[in-house]
């Protein structure tokens, strides 16, 4: 399997490489670092006419990619590519399609002053059009050890079951503990009734999706979730603990996200909005708000996405 990493020679690109390495280490994945350099429009003709700038730019891009490859440890295989295109997002998507990549990995931004995720323009257009899942590294993501837990943002809207499928299969393939996260924004503080309902719904869906998924501990009262074993990385699928269901509440979605505990090695899987076209990502408003408060990386899965098998 291959992951395309949208690489730029700055903090944003480094975040992306770190996350890609962390994801690749759980799995038999090779990385393709893609550096996009802009294509000159002849209608933007430079005066006096020259043709050599691109040689200098190419040389620089090669050096940048060498630095990028240096960030990848020896146990992960990686290749580097220079691509030209008007739009960085479109060029990355084209590369991902061409390589038949299982995911696109990018850094969210390099200037998130207040929140971890402030979406840059490239990330934003990817999140609204990519045909493959987009993994977003938060600002300053340094971790390159394998992912330790998979969380799945879970709602009641259409498409939730497909996402759950992807999450259950991914967790099984990767031998990772799975956690279903249901986020409730409640103006009036705690509402045990709603939380219970959300929990029951999640348990139902989970039971319907994965026949192996047995749920035995109700956690409806926990509004900040509870910790799970984190030593599952690299273990066999059979050892994977049962999926865990967590309902988090807060006055806002952001507060609900803050109240949950997140492992350092965790990653959140989230679905696309119903507005997404078939087989494309579209970051909905709730997902967008989750994104802004989230301290860990997240993967946005396209609508009606079927997983590539390893």
């Amino acid at each position, binding site marked *: 399997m291959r992951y395309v990493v949208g690489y730029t020679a700055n903090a944003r690109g480094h975040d992306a490489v770190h996350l890609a390495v962390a994801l690749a*280490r759980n799995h*038999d994945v090779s990385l393709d670092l893609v550096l996009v350099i802009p294509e000159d*429009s002849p209608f933007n003709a430079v005066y006096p006419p*020259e043709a050599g700038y691109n040689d200098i730019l190419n040389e620089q891009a090669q050096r940048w990619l060498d630095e990028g490859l240096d960030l990848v440890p020896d146990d992960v*295989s990686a290749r580097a590519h220079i691509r030209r295109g008007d739009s960085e997002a479109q060029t990355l998507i084209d590369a991902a399609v061409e390589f038949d990549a299982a995911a696109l990995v990018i850094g969210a931004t390099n200037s998130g002053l207040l929140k971890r995720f402030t979406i840059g323009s490239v990330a934003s257009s990817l999140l609204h059009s990519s045909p493959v899942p987009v993994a977003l590294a938060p600002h300053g993501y340094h971790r390159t050890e394998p992912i330790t837990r998979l969380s799945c943002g879970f709602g009641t809207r259409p498409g939730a079951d497909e996402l759950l499928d992807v999450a259950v299969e991914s967790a099984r393939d990767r031998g990772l503990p799975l956690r279903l996260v249901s986020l409730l924004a409640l103006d009036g503080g705690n509402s045990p009734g709603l939380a219970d309902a959300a929990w029951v719904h999640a348990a139902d869906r989970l039971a319907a999706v994965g026949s192996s998924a047995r749920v035995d501990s109700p956690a409806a009262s926990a509004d900040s979730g509870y910790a799970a074993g984190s030593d599952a990385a*690299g273990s066999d699928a059979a050892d994977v603990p049962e999926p865990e269901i967590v309902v988090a509440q807060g006055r806002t979605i952001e507060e609900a996200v803050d109240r949950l505990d997140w492992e350092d090695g965790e990653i959140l899987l989230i679905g696309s909005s119903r507005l997404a076209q078939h087989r494309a990502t579209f970051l909905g408003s709730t997902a967008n708000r989750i994104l802004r408060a989230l301290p860990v990386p997240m993967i946005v899965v396209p609508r009606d996405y079927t997983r590539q098998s390893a």
Partner: protein
Amino acid sequence: MSTAPKTVQSKETPGLSEKGLKAGSVGLIGAVVIGVSCIAPAYTLTAALGPTVSEVGVHLPAIFLVGFIPMLLVALGYRELNNAMPDAGTSFTWATRAFGPWIGWMGGWGLIAATIIVLSNLAAVAVDFFYLMLAQIFSNPALGELSKILPLNIATTLVFIALACWISYRGMETTKGVQYVLVAFQLLVLGWFAVSAFAHVANGTAFDATTISPDWFNPFAVDSFSQFAAGVSLSIFIYWGWDVTLTMNEETKNPEKTPGRAATITVLVIVIIYMTVALATLSFAGVGETGLGAGNPENQSSIFAVLAGPVMGPFAILMSLAILSSSAASLQSTFVSPARTMLAMGHYRAISPKFGKISPTYKSPSFATIAAAIAAAAFYVITRTVSENALWDTITALGMMICFYYGITALACVWFFRASAFSGVRPFFFKFLAPLVGGVILLVMFVKTAMDSMDPEYGSGSSVGGVGLVFVLGMGVILLGVVVMLVMYRLRPEFFKGKVLTRA
């Protein structure tokens, strides 16, 4: 499922054929549009028409025609160099390869200086028309006068320069559609201006109706060689940008024929529009030095700002829009040029390697673009505070600077190809004769204009210490270049010892 360690870290080297431009994306009309937009006729006419009339009077059409000859000759050599040694440093690299590091360095400096000067002039013209447009929109002439308040004018110009720098740094692309509309709009408005002016002449409502005479087309009727030289160096400026069509190759749909045809059509379009507008302006306003006269020093900085209202009536706002849009678009794209030359010079260690930095986010020259903006801003502030008519003087200084670096480039072509130029008729003409004649003409114009401009009465009549401001600006910039070059020699001698770029 962890994987066995693997270390296949290979890198795909992109083929050298991968140029930055889309191959085969430009047709004949597209190439003409690119050529015309590089010339920016609405902006060049408003900036250069007045100063040229003040030198050569009614012989403006003759000078506009003659000015094209050295431009054509030099552009032919330029094309040969561009084909033989495509390089971001253009004049800098070519002159270095031909004449060694010292002359090459000064060639690069001349190019950078010319583009910096034109940047400050473009921004200033855009600001004038920005306020004029506000006045026209709100029917309040007082708003137009705001551009004459020095601190406000300087502040607005600096804002324009900063904006253009930011856009250029971010690497915003002008699309085909936008470029077509901008060019069509410019040509349409200039045509409208000419037709209205002739209509006023026919109706007897012109300011100073002057009958067109064949004598206007006779370059030998210009009073003195000084005026002729000044006129020609100004008209070099009005064609500056035309040669871009000649150097287009892979990006055209038919590389064999399109560039040549596009260059021919571009020059026909440009000459026709220049002739029509020049004749219309002279017929309507005459060359008198009072009122709306094209010779009035008050009108030199921007002739259309004065004439558009009386000629086009309420539609004068279209002229403001055309000039504002063409100078704003040029302002943004012109930033690329000094930035890339500085980048190349930094890359070859002729100046600090900081200039060779490329922004990782936007993949554009970062340090060099900002340096170009600061230089253009500084040049404008100095000229505006010292000169009585800054736009006029910058345009004259610009003409000199273009003659200087174009002359060097043309002679570099002759010298570089000296071995292969005599192998046939075609190389003899394109690699030797044309650039030699063109280069010599331009350098003669440069020396003559430089000598004449020492006169404190030259140009707008501003002077510093009894020496004409144009001379101070033009030669000052070149001398500054010599000083910087000597400093660079001390700091990083490897370039000057020919260790980076070798002579061919």
